[in-house]
């Protein structure tokens, strides 16, 4: 062994430490494997021997014990131990039943070699001043011969088995690892031959400058052995890391279609998907996303109108888009239409397409691999952007601006220009969507302002259902049939049990309002969870994103347009305007448009008195707790 300086030894030590840590993790999973224990010993010995070869570490044992060049003895002992451990690994791999007995002879040989090495070291009489390799004595020759002899014996033992196994294994990181291991051992043999020749030349009086070649061969041999042992288990993860960007691209591009499917079937989701999966989980998460989309599309089959896909395909073809893209657009249009039918068909009605054969489901059952699904998802995403901006979206694949996605005239539940809110959207739900980004789901307000605003919205829902009356601070539930919505019914039941002023009720409901409203929107399929990691400790946080950004953006745009046009508002929109004013989001909604803001304030001052009282109490509570601020 040799003293090595500089980065090669440190790089080799890092490789060995990483390999050793990885194998120790494996050993924790499989503690009964004697061969795995042997591998850990090999890597630990090689790592320690390499570190001892590093100049600053080399001097340390001498400084502690006062024995000159003790690190050299330790290096030799560690190398012999690593060789014996590697022999035991292959004996256990060949036959665990006889390995113990066969290894006994090798342990005896190792003991003899260690005795000769230690004796030779003691008899050599090294001094601190002289370099370790400078003196050639019979004792030092015997010591080097013992080391090289045992290493050669171990190499012959191991190379045969490793080569045999590598021939039996199909091409894979395992085979490459076995070959790398064999190469490392052969490099070790080359080191031994070189060292032996140098010794012979030194005995006959010729000084051969062998240090540089010995150093290189020793480091190469140990690094290759460690890499060969680690490659089969680390290789697939490195391959995953290389493939991660491409897979993430697919995963991200499938998100619009996944969210669309989530709107109609939340039960098919095993767990909230992460926004950016880790290298380890990317493959599983991508497969999961594809399976969930495919399963969701299967449930849409009976809502498919073949004519919609046909019309979209013809429209796309007339614009000269490639056949694959036209097909994807047709499938996206078909999916959008089927989702619309499913979400607007009462559950008791089995639903049937208006025309065409019910078995003609080819447009929803997207065939082909993940890439064809990605094309459909991109087309669906383009369709959403069309609906939102009214402009033709550019093609992300070809980069052609404004020519790729034809305007698809599909019936949508929620057009921007429509003055009516969604029939199934509640006041609190609409407020929640407006308080959060239409794509990212990030809050536009301070969390406390959202909580208080949603609590007020839940009470406002009961006001409009005529199950509650508010007069100043006084809150009085009204008897009658319970509200059909479970959340509204729960709030109403709470109000009937105790009597408190409005501000206290708002503060009480605010404690759970966000979770409650999220739960209701989730059940309606309007928002979907996405897991992100935050902070230095990668804390997992669930963010709720709209499944259809058109719905979220539509609420915002609809009210903004109505207020800018100074239109007369329906009670629902007037209440929403009042709530936005209470949480101070109206300025952002109208982008500082003063006439529109004055119109909004006019509406707020002329609200239905019970609602106006509720909003006064809400504003008062907010003022007393925090100042709302935009994020």
């Amino acid at each position, binding site marked *: 062994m040799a003293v090595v300086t500089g980065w090669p030894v440190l790089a080799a030590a890092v490789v060995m430490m990483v390999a050793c840590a990885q194998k120790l993790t*494996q050993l924790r*999973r*499989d503690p*009964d*494997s004697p*061969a*795995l224990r042997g*591998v850990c010993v090999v890597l630990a010995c090689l790592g320690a021997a390499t570190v001892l070869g590093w100049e600053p570490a080399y001097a340390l044992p001498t400084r502690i014990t006062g024995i000159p060049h003790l690190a050299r003895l330790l290096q030799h002992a560690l190398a012999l131990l690593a060789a014996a451990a590697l022999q035991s*690994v292959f004996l*256990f*791999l*060949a*036959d*665990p*039943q006889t390995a113990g007995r066969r290894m006994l002879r090798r342990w005896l040989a190792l003991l003899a070699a260690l005795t000769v090495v230690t004796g030779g070291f003691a008899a050599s009489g090294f001094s601190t001043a002289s370099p370790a390799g400078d003196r050639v004595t019979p004792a030092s020759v015997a010591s080097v011969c013992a080391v090289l002899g045992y290493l050669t014996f171990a190499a012959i033992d191991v190379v045969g088995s490793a080569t*045999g*196994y590598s021939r*039996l*294994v*199909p091409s*894979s*990181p*395992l085979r490459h*690892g*076995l070959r790398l291991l064999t190469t490392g051992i052969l490099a070790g043999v080359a080191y031994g031959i070189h060292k032996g020749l140098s010794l012979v030349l030194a005995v006959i009086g010729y000084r051969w400058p062998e240090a540089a070649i010995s150093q290189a061969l020793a480091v190469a041999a140990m690094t290759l052995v460690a890499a060969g*042992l680690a490659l*089969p*288990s680390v290789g*697939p*993860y490195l391959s*995953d890391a290389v493939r991660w960007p491409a897979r993430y691209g697919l995963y991200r591009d499938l998100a619009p279609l996944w969210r669309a499917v989530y709107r109609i*079937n939340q*039960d*098919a*989701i*095993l*767990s909230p998907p*992460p926004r950016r999966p*880790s290298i*380890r*989980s990317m*493959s*599983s998460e991508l*497969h*999961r996303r*594809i*399976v969930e989309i*495919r*399963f969701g599309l*299967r*449930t849409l*089959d009976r809502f498919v109108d073949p004519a919609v896909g046909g019309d979209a395909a013809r429209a796309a073809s007339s614009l000269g888009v490639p056949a694959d893209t036209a097909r994807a657009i047709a499938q996206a249009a078909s999916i959008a239409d089927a989702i619309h039918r499913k979400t607007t068909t009462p559950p008791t009605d*089995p639903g049937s397409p208006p025309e065409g054969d019910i078995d003609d*489901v080819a447009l929803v*059952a*997207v*065939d082909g*691999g993940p890439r064809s699904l990605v094309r459909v998802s991109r087309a669906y995403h383009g369709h959403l952007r069309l609906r939102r901006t009214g402009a033709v979206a550019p093609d992300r694949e070809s980069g052609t601006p404004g020519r790729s996605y034809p305007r698809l005239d599909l019936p949508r539940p929620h057009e921007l220009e429509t003055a009516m809110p969604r029939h199934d959207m509640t006041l609190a739900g609409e407020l929640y969507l407006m308080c959060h980004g239409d794509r990212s789901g990030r809050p536009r307000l301070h969390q406390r302002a959202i909580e208080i605003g949603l609590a007020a919205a839940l009470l406002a829902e009961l006001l409009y259902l005529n199950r509650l009356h508010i007069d100043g601070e006084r809150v009085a539930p009204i008897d009658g049939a319970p509200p059909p919505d479970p959340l509204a019914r729960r709030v109403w039941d709470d109000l009937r049990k105790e009597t408190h002023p409005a501000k206290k009720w708002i503060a009480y409901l605010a404690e759970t309002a966000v979770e409650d409203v999220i739960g209701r929107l989730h059940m309606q399929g309007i928002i979907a969870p996405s*897991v992100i990691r935050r902070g230095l400790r990668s804390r*997992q946080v669930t963010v709720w994103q709209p499944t259809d950004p058109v719905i979220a953006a539509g609420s915002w745009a609809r009210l903004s347009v109505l207020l800018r046009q100074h239109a007369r508002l329906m009670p629902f929109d007037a209440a929403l305007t009042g709530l936005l004013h209470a949480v101070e989001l109206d300025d952002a909604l109208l982008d500082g448009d003063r006439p529109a803001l004055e119109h909004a304030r006019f509406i707020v001052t002329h609200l239905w008195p019970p609602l106006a009282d509720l909003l006064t109490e809400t504003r008062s509570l907010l003022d007393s707790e925090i100042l709302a601020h935009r994020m």
Partner: protein
Amino acid sequence: MDGHQIRRWEGVLRRLPVTIPNPFDPWAFRDAVARQRRRPIRILRLDTARDGVVGCGLWVRARVADYIVVDRDAPRELAGHLLCHELAHILLDHKGLMPFASAALGFDRLDPEMIQRVLGRSGRFSDSEERDAEGLATVVRSFAARRSPVPRPRDGDSADMVAIDRVSSVFCGDRGWLS
């Protein structure tokens, strides 16, 4: 699925004495499971979307064979996943018994007396057995891609086949140690 769940399922797959094909093929995996259990597993492609019948997938354990029903119209990728889900029920030895209308699925020749267990994948994962099976079916594909292509040994295999299984266990960490 978070890292903890994935590690848990990979641990289960690592301990399985079954060959997981690499590259992964659900139908070849079915053959491997059947060989290991020494019981035939028959796949029936039926229309499971009909009203009143469980949706998508079903495992029926009868006296001499296992039957896996897979949605006839499911795309290949989804059908493969449904098959893996039902195989996961078998491998995890789940005990669930759900109401089973054999005639509705076209099992006219299957005697209800012979049926010992029935488990179905309906796309709702509130039940723990369903979640477990779905988790395993999701992870098996990526696990197989990271696994070495060495098959698990069977009775009568040569000593070399058994040895390279141990080599794979030690070097790749993709399976348990067979002594």
